[in-house]
């Protein structure tokens, strides 16, 4: 066995070695302590959002024009118990009970939800979209299974939250939240029940105080919409969503902002309104937008008959196109018949000189990427496992909206119009894609390599451009001081698809133009809903 003396004997220069040893030990200590002292904690922008404290409570929002509701009283809300009743006193006692011993974690939840109900549920939606935005893995025989709403827990999980699906999901949830809040404001004003922290001075407000009547709870209305619509949109996440809703509602009671009857009335109203949207969603055409092999073949044949090169899936095994009939889905901001009117003219013919020129331009970007263009490609890619481009624009809007100190109902109104515009952008874009069935650049010239994932549907027009044009135009109307920023973002998002070598210039130009047109229709809606009077 070894011994120290044996070890020492093998060291020819013991003195030098001792010094060296010391130095090395110090170095080791330094490098060992260094990483432990460096914090790896990451600050998340969403975590730091401030509590919502509206500059204007929009008390009269009950008069704003709803989207689907025939009026704010379509779903009646019963008068609440008077604050002088024992029933109400008992509800206050629940709050007091919570407030006697609030834990740090409970206070943290209150702070999280205080940023705003519309905001937080929008974030939750984005997370669900990102989680479910994954194309199904192929069957052993090279075909692809389709997610089934009837059997959502079996792989491939329902839904595949691709950009059209996501755009529609954001739109339904946002629009229903808006309608439910319009109705809620009607009853808030009618019944005028003050918040618990105003009624009883011994109740502490853990959120900014508001003069907005608390019955029915605006937070509960929003959560009720989310819980109800998720049954349709993300059926495998109902347990998660319910847990979030319970946490949300509890946080409002703990915060002294709502009594339980405020919550229950709001939840019921939100669910009722959402059910009306669910009925619309079940018949809006999205359920059959996947088409079938006969339709896919017909689209290809029609393209060939026009003398053009048809789109072919570049995936292996070849994947059916993504939702080829999504262009037939019922839009929110205009009639289905208007979709064809909004359709841009045809792309450059695949046999034209202009097409060849644009194809060469894509090849140039494919072969001459630089770091800045790569940054742009990846910043805007919003591909699989992301909240998609509409989700990205929701995030952009959110971070601007929090600076505005809006009421929940104004948040909901602006989110609703933004998301209806992007859903309608998806409809118009998909209409054009499958009307023209234009091939991707890398299909025509295999030398073109892409710097991001190649979407599995025809090229013209660019979805990113259409979404971004619609979003930027509407957001510029809402926040005119940011117009240049939003337009620059839309342009960059569009160019990212050319830089990534997956779109021709014609795709992004036409996409932006159609997007801008849809944005104008969104502005027209905003100008006529009474919210800006």
């Amino acid at each position, binding site marked *: 066995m070894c011994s120290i003396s044996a070890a020492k004997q093998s060291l020819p220069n013991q003195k030098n070695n001792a010094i*060296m040893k010391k130095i090395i030990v110090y*170095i080791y200590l330094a490098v060992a302590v260094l*990483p432990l002292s460096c914090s790896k904690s*990451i600050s998340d922008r969403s975590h730091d959002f401030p509590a919502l404290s509206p500059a204007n409570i929009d008390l009269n929002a009950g008069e704003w024009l709803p989207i689907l509701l025939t009026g704010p009283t379509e779903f009646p809300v019963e008068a609440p118990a008077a604050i002088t009743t024992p029933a109400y006193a008992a509800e206050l006692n629940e709050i007091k009970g919570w407030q006697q011993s609030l834990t740090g974690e409970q206070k943290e939840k209150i702070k999280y939800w205080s940023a705003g109900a519309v905001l937080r549920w929008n974030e939750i939606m984005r997370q669900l979209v990102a989680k479910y935005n*994954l194309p199904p893995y192929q069957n052993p025989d090279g075909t692809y299974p389709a997610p089934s709403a009837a059997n959502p827990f079996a792989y491939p999980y329902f839904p595949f939250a691709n950009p059209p699906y996501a755009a529609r999901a954001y739109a339904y949830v946002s629009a229903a939240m808006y309608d439910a809040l319009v109705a809620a404001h009607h009853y808030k004003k009618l019944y005028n029940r003050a918040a618990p922290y105003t009624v009883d001075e011994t109740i502490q407000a853990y959120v900014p105080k508001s003069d907005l009547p608390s019955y029915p709870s605006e937070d509960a209305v929003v959560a009720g919409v989310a819980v109800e619509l998720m049954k349709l949109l993300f059926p495998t996440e109902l347990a998660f969503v319910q847990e979030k809703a319970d946490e949300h509602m509890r946080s409002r009671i703990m915060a002294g902002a709502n009594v339980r009857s405020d919550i229950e009335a709001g939840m019921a109203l939100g669910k009722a309104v959402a059910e009306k949207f669910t009925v619309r969603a079940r018949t809006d055409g999205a359920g059959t937008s996947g088409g079938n092999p006969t339709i896919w073949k017909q689209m290809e044949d029609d393209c060939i008959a026009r003398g053009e090169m048809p789109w072919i899936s570049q995936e292996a095994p070849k994947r059916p196109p993504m939702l080829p009939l999504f262009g037939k889905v019922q839009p929110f901001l205009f009639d289905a018949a208007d979709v064809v009117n909004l359709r841009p003219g045809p792309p450059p013919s695949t046999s034209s000189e202009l097409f060849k020129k644009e194809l060469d331009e894509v090849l140039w970007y494919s072969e001459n990427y630089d770091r800045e263009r790569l940054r742009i490609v990846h910043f805007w890619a919003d591909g699989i*496992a992301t*909240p998609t481009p509409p989700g990205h624009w929701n*995030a952009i809007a959110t971070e601007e909206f929090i600076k505005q100190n809006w009421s929940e109902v104004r948040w909901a109104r602006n989110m609703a119009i933004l998301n209806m515009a992007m859903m309608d952008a998806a409809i118009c874009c998909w209409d054009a894609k499958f009307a023209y069935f234009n091939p991707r650049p890398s299909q025509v010239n295999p030398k073109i390599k*892409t710097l991001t994932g190649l979407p599995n549907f025809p090229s013209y027009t660019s979805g990113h451009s259409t979404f971004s044009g619609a979003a930027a135009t509407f957001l510029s109307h809402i926040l005119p001081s940011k117009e240049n920023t939003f337009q620059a973002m839309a342009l960059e998002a569009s160019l990212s698809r050319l830089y990534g070598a997956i779109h021709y210039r014609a795709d992004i130009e036409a996409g932006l133009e159609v997007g801008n047109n849809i944005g104008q229709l969104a502005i027209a809606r905003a100008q006529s809903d009474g919210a800006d009077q």
Partner: protein
Amino acid sequence: MKMLQAKCPLRTLLIAVVLFAFLPGKAQTDLDALMMKKNRLCAGFMYVHNSWDEYWEGTFKRDNLNLGTVTTQMIGVMGAYGITNKVNLIFSLPYVKTKASAGTFSGLDGIQDLSLFGKWQAAKWKAGKGNITLFGVAGISFPVSNYTADYLPFSIGLESKTLSLRVIGDYDIGRFFVTGSGTYTFRDNITIDRDAYYTTQMHYTNEVYMPDVMLFNLRAGYRHSVLIAELFATSQKTLGGFDITKNNMPFPSNEMNMTMVGAGFKYDMPFHKPLSVIGGAGYVVKGRNVGQSLVLNGGVFYVFDFSRKTKSAESKK
């Protein structure tokens, strides 16, 4: 023993190249028990060819016809310098190029990370008929170009600044040896080009938490005169991170684990001893969120002896 200390210690780089190998990898240095003598520099070029056509999505092994075979090639400049007989400074700087044989994805290329390691022969003693030697290694690595990590499997690296601490133990008896080592690598957070991303939840930041990594390596073989020939097994474990979900793309902070086995050699040219060639191969036999890499490498190294010059300089004083 003289023989041992003359060896160029860069042979084992190959393993490290596939360390984080979903894909490309990281040129780390030095898992073996060789030291450069004082004032000697061993420097040269290493070529590494890493390819896979199957990979693990979490624990699900699959191929991907949209990638075909993913190849990462690396040409590295590297060297080891003897500050003393018992303290070496080791560096490496690779150029990396990635490519897929199928599908539309473009590969990328660029200069990756500079690694700087100090290696210290801490103790040596006789044990029976053989010798036991202990080494300590500490080093850092950091990107020297502004590449993106968030385009796996085509990123040229993971972008994280690292600090590694390693302990190596070697036992040799006659012409045979066995060397084991354990490494703990601290990894700094990275920033990506996106301003939000999903792991198992959404993160609204461009900063990505990178879990630390542990590596164990065992190698054994023949080591005598001009030839070293060995077999090795190495295991990498990421201490955190998450699985790639089904049909998703990989992400830099995935839990990338692997076990690789392989063989390598080093041969000093009999006609000119300072010149040596190395070669080796490794294969990933078990993995999680990594490609099943086959790694082939070859290199040419030269030993420069600065000791005479130094001596004459000292004698002038």
